[in-house]
């Protein structure tokens, strides 16, 4: 259940945030990558479009929604990064794609 907090470790894993390469510690969350990339706001809300960013960092508030490897509306604080992971901001509502 308990994991080592990753902040102390060196940033060794490359991911992309909004297409830009960022190096983050192994075991960090995708939300940490968004913050390390220096984004002040990481999404716009689905109804009013207000700017938001990761908040509780423990899976409760849903403020950290991001598109991860093409999947929209992921709770980025609950996803552990891996090499080459592509993380993007969540712009408002996702598309449901019913062709």
């Amino acid at each position, binding site marked *: 259940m308990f994991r080592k907090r990753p902040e102390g470790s060196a940033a060794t894993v490359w991911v992309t945030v909004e297409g830009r390469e960022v190096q983050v510690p192994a075991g960090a969350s995708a939300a940490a990558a968004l913050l390390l990339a220096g984004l002040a706001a990481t999404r716009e809300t689905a109804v009013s479009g207000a700017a938001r960013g990761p908040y509780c960092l423990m899976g409760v508030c849903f403020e950290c929604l991001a598109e991860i490897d093409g999947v929209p*509306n992921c709770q980025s604080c609950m996803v552990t990064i891996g090499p080459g992971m592509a993380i993007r901001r969540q712009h408002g*509502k*996702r598309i*449901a*794609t019913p*062709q």
Partner: protein
Amino acid sequence: MQRIDAIVIGGGLVGSAIAYGLARAGLKTALIDEGDVAFRASRGNFGLVWVQSKGLGAPHYQRWTRRSAEEWPKLAAELVAGTGIDPALEQPGGVHLCLSDQELDERRARMEQMRAEAGNFGFDYRMLGPSELKDMLPRLGPAVVGASWTPYDGHANSLYLLHALHNGFVQRGGVYIPNRTIDYAAAQPNDFRLGSGADEVAAPKIVLAAGLGNAKLAPLFGLRAPVRPQRGQILVTERAGRVFDMPTTTVRQTVEGGIMIGDSMEDVGFDTSQRPDVMAAMAERAVLSFPWLAELQVVRAWAALRVMPPDGTPIYDESEQFPGAFTANCHSGVTLAGAHANVFAAMVAAGALAPEMVPFSARRFDVPQAA
């Protein structure tokens, strides 16, 4: 002691709609609610303003539902104008999807009977095949063999409706008294008193709209309300851009974008726990209907208790023993909000239910004594 014109017990959708209507009619009204400890269907429902399946074998109920759907746009417009809170009413018609030939045959028979019972009022419906449904709904699964459609159905945001009714009620001079459980009242004809001392409230009219609480309250006023709980579970997906505005009986997309999947019917008593097997069955049927739903994540789920009369038809009554006391109970308080605010409340304000309400009396449950 405070003397007012009317007391409404129960601040859910039924009580709030009636209290709003009474306040609008100029009656000084108090709305009393038990609070968060109560079972409150009004905070856990599916939000349909639904006509096409209501009142089979009970034409008075079919008409009452139609009437309510007609009153709804007036009520919604008035609430938006008066409170700024929009209950998000949309009435584009509605669809009931059938996933087997047997379901389709049963549905067709039901709709035919509804039309026959509608008589002079007419009942516009059509049975649709997959090709016609294509124009109304986004990419249906091959399991969908057909559907029934009527132009009368719609949906709304029932939480905003409740909020707007409360707001409008207070704005029109109503007094909302929360966190108060009524378990005793002094009842005399046209003289009802609750509480004691400085807290005492007296009024010549009282409306019992306490949902499941009515079963215990009604006998204090010479009335009966034999309602029982029926559990329903609901799933809600993440918000997605608007894909469809046509509601179906069990899948609809809200104006905010979330897709609601509902709702089970379980007779389990006063139990609001959730059941994974029931949720899985609901999700499975939803995905059979709309395969693309499988891509969306479910972000919320809950269970709530419907207020169910023995025969599923609403109960509206007035006390013979204590004139001035009324009951109102139904399992479709969203749908019937228009009739409650605009029609039922006017009857209470006038002091008596109209003759068309007689078939809704709980006296229909009185079994004749064996000789």
